[in-house]
């Protein structure tokens, strides 16, 4: 009786801690749920402490950024350019994407990347991006504009860039000084941020009140934002340059001939329709009938090809469908299509009814 009474608080604490652990959303390392294909391939060496969720399905490597960090991806060998499923459509993510100016290697929280992998060896690596300080500020500012209207994205990006530069200057100003001299740095930071506001990037946007801007400025000048910015700039911790930040993929031991085989003329897919966002880049016109479809390889065959073979298959398919869309766009479309419909032929991307 006495013991149980003494243990009760510990038990409550243990349950509380356990519930916190259970609620932690981040998942890193191997996550077979990401793969539509069979994830049992042993070609890819994904360590349990790899920085983000990853899955290798034989011809495609899927990564999902489960962190709150902006990452950069790199690839080498027989690994093609990734297609992307954007998971965060909020203002801060839009601002970061605009700031990154279309950098294909940027990897934002909740993004999923699909890397086509040929039969050769290759690597895919991740590391923390230098944009994390910028993203921390963008996240702070975005909180003041719920809903994130599109008109704001350009203005917030300009403003966030300036604030990020001001923080850089402040950090430089602090270095090598004692506390007394550092008081001047603070004054300079405040002046610079006031200039950023006064330049009117926000005022150009209808509906943003002075009160909102002042509140945003207060949040930017808070201890929390500064510590987040500093932490983001040194956060090369979990997803970093060390060995577990790289996935090594071995070459296939026996070359496959599936890539050159003609696929069946018809398919019996019963897959559900993919979400609209997933097929947003799929061309919906220029279909010329089933006769041409029969010459396209199946997704399985396509994914077994090397990167150069895939590019060739796409060029052939595009020519058959009189599709003048850029090859890179088509490549991404086919990758996404095959991710959703692994048992279709690749020219299913032209079939709007799927």
């Amino acid at each position, binding site marked *: 009786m006495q013991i149980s009474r003494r243990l009760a608080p510990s038990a409550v604490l243990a349950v509380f801690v356990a519930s916190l652990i259970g609620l932690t959303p981040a998942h890193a390392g191997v996550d077979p749920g990401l793969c539509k294909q069979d994830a049992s391939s042993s070609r890819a060496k994904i360590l349990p402490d790899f920085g983000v969720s990853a899955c290798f399905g034989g011809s495609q490597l899927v990564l999902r950024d489960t962190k709150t960090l902006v990452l950069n991806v790199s690839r080498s060998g027989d690994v093609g350019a990734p297609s992307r499923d954007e998971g965060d459509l909020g203002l801060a993510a839009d601002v970061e994407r605009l700031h990154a100016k279309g950098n294909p290697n940027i990897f934002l929280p909740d993004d999923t990347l699909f890397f086509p992998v040929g039969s050769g060896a290759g690597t895919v690596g991740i590391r923390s991006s230098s944009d994390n300080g910028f993203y921390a500020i963008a996240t702070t500012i975005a909180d003041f504009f719920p809903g994130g209207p599109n008109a704001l994205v350009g203005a917030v990006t300009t403003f966030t860039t300036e604030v990020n530069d001001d923080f850089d200057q402040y950090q430089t100003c602090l270095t090598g000084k004692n*506390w*007394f001299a550092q*008081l001047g740095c603070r004054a300079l930071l405040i002046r610079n941020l006031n200039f950023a506001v006064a330049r009117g990037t926000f005022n150009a946007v209808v509906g943003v009140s002075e009160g909102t801007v002042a509140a945003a400025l207060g949040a930017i000048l808070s201890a929390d934002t500064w510590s987040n910015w500093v932490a983001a700039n040194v956060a090369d911790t979990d997803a970093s340059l060390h060995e577990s930040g790289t996935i090594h993929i071995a070459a296939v031991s026996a070359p496959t001939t599936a890539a050159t085989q003609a696929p069946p003329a018809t398919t019996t897919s019963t897959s559900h329709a993919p979400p609209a966002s997933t097929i947003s880049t799929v061309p919906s016109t220029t279909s010329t009938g089933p006769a041409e479809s029969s010459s396209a390889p199946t997704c399985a065959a396509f994914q077994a090809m090397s990167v150069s073979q895939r590019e060739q298959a796409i060029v052939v398919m595009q020519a058959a469908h009189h599709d003048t869309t850029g090859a890179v766009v088509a490549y991404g479309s086919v990758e996404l299509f095959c991710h959703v419909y692994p048992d279709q032929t690749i020219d299913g991307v032209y079939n709007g009814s799927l």
Partner: protein
Amino acid sequence: MAELELLNGRMAHLATVFVALLLTLAAEGCGSSGPSTSTAVFGGAPVETPRSAPAYCRMLTSDKALLALSGAMTQLATAHDDAAARTSMRAAAAEVSSAALQAPLAQAHVLVRVATALRTLAARGPSAAVALNNAFTHAGSVLGRSCRFPVA
């Protein structure tokens, strides 16, 4: 039996308090004579000076208005007409002037310059920040030698 149970309960409570005390002491460095780790600005150097340093140095490190200056600047940034922020800056200027009265000539000179810059900032707002930064930077360098303020 009930008394024994009560005694056990008290012993357990005392043990818990003792462990908590040990943990607190361990976290605080086992004593109150350790150096303060407070800073005047975010990410800044500790506000401290050795006990052997001149009195005007210790006046500065214990100057509440000066230590609250960072907060007053933030208030002024978000509300340019904030009277409380301006008052706080003028109070900091007055206390810096008081320290200057006890300082040798070279140190007094730079402190007076800081006090003047603070009053200007209180009057004109953030546009006077460059002059204030210059005054603080120069004063920090001059005072650092005699006050032995740690550097970040």
